[in-house]
């Protein structure tokens, strides 16, 4: 690893650690919590969608699995949310096998729409499932605050650092996987599945591995969300719009890169939160008009995402500084 990336990673990490100590405004802290949450979700999605090239538009299913599993276990058995998080991740892995085993035979749009179909089915079923609160949703039982109960009522800081920890683990995992055998297999599958198979890559097994890891991380984020908001319902943890936004964060930043989902979340989430705060009042949807416009512009002008744009700019600059004007032609 070169020195520049190490310094950059250290600087970003230091900034994230110091941020809530300097910025005390709860709304601004909340925004960075959302950025990290979507950074985590985008990183998880990226393992399957970006690294392996299997576009899922149904990741809310895993998020909801994490949120509902830990919440139901907490409500009915008083189980610690940390164990609930593990149980949610395990449930999401099982679900990912149940979805992946049949759906990995599909390719391209057929796979993407199959994941939408699964997502819609799960959302409709949970909405009509009385035991899980149905359409009304579930309030988490409020208890004493503390790390063990993963509930904090006086400050957002503990939530912030717990989430930062989860994010660091997920990003480190993604960076490590990218440089080891699964990462290379995934990239081979993404480029050309038939060719990868002919070279002996067990494609289905490795796609399943990507989906299981992705589902588990997404479920952990779901449990965190439930503990943070203390209320869940199908409209907030299972909708198609959530699946799309997770995918969008990764794609906007740069699908298939480690930094992409983080960059995407850091740009998209504050943008949508601030436009909502400043333009979204009075029930008018001007914030989402701007949001839609932005998605279109980025897709049309920068399909490689912001990381792709940054790389191109950096390449252009180094080429210029080396006085090799034609270097960009390749």
């Amino acid at each position, binding site marked *: 690893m070169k020195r520049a990336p190490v310094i950059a990673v250290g600087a970003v990490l230091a900034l994230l650690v110091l941020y809530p100590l300097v910025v005390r405004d709860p709304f601004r802290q909340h925004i960075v919590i959302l950025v990290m949450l979507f950074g985590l979700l985008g990183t998880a999605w990226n393992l399957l*969608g970006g690294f392996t090239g299997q*576009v899922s538009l149904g990741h809310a299913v895993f998020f909801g699995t994490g949120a509902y599993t830990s919440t139901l276990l907490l409500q009915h058995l008083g189980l610690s949310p940390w164990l609930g998080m593990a149980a949610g991740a395990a449930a999401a892995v099982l679900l990912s096998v149940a979805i992946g085993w*049949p*759906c990995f*035979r*599909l*390719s*391209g*749009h*057929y796979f*993407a*729409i*199959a994941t*939408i*179909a*699964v997502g*819609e*089915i799960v959302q*409709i*079923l949970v*909405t*009509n499932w009385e035991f899980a609160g149905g359409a009304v949703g579930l309030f988490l039982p409020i208890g004493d605050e503390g790390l063990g109960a993963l509930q904090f009522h006086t400050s957002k800081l503990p939530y912030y650092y717990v989430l930062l920890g989860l994010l660091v683990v997920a990003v480190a995992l993604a960076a490590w996987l990218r440089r080891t055998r699964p990462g290379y297999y995934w990239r081979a599958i993404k480029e050309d599945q038939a060719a990868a198979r002919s070279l002996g890559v067990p494609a289905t097994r490795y796609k399943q591995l990507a989906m299981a890891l992705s589902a588990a991380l997404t479920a952990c984020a779901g449990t965190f969300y439930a503990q943070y908001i203390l209320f869940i319902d199908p409209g907030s943890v299972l909708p198609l719009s959530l699946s*799309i936004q997770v*995918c*969008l964060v990764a*794609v906007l930043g740069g*699908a298939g890169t480690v930094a992409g989902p983080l960059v995407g979340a850091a740009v998209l989430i504050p943008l949508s939160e601030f436009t909502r705060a400043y333009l979204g009042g009075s*029930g*008018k*949807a*001007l914030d*989402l*008009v701007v*949001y*839609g*416009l*932005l*998605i*279109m*512009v*980025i*897709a*049309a*002008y920068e*399909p490689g995402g912001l990381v792709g744009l940054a790389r191109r700019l950096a390449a252009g600059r180094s080429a210029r500084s080396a006085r090799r004007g034609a270097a960009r032609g390749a």
Partner: protein
Amino acid sequence: MSAEVVAQALVSGVLIGFVFALIAAGLSLIFGVMDIVNFAHGEFLMLSMYLSYFLYTGLGWDPVAALPINAAALFVLGVAVYALLIRRVLKAPMLAQIFATFGLGVFLQNLAIWLWLPDFRTVGDTWLTGRVEVLGLFVSRPQLAAAVGAILTTGGLFWLLTRTEVGRALLATAEDRQAAALMGIDPDRMFALAWGLGAACVGVAGALLSTFYYIFPQVGVVFGLVAYVAVALGGFGSVAGAFVGGIIIGAVESLAGVFIAPAIKNVFVFAIYLVVVLVRPRGLFGKS
């Protein structure tokens, strides 16, 4: 439950299924010609329904009589979207294509909320309002008219594609872009035409639906999702397949609503999709 109820559910399901079929045919045409799924298709439908609404409330023009206006307006919209947005992502990765049209959908939907508020509107009573009795079954007249209109329009599209020079050029472009270009067919014009025709199909569907369906900014979401399932069910790129897919979905949705529970009827629509693509991964009529 009597046979009469089954027949009644089946008839009304198939009738709305024809409208699904028309929406899906337009989506499938676009996909077939250029391998791009229009995730803003439902929003095109929504715009067409609002057009009918404003023509009716503003000028008193009947939605069915004004149908050619809807078709023409949406044709222009489709071509404009192609020229301004889609042309830029033709060679981009699939994800960029998905988000180009998805962003367009978000934009249009929320523009509608911003401009026209999230209220539910209806055109109200038209000359179609009422019902007819056919063989002991009651059929709503607007739904019957919508089904007939959808059948005629899809038939017209099919005739255009298979019996005219320009239609064959479209199919040739779908078959092999480069070979078609070598035969002197300009792919760029064909793509624009596919977007125009695909959008015109939803334009007609929107006018037909506006006589009996609520008009609101999110109306396209439901129809859009059903159309994707219909298209995938029939096989991406097959207009005939999309048509059959639409009818199957209309029937399944209606029967599940009557026999199981209206609240979860869409579970069966999506489940049917999963079953079909798992047995036939490219849909019922898809090209392999």
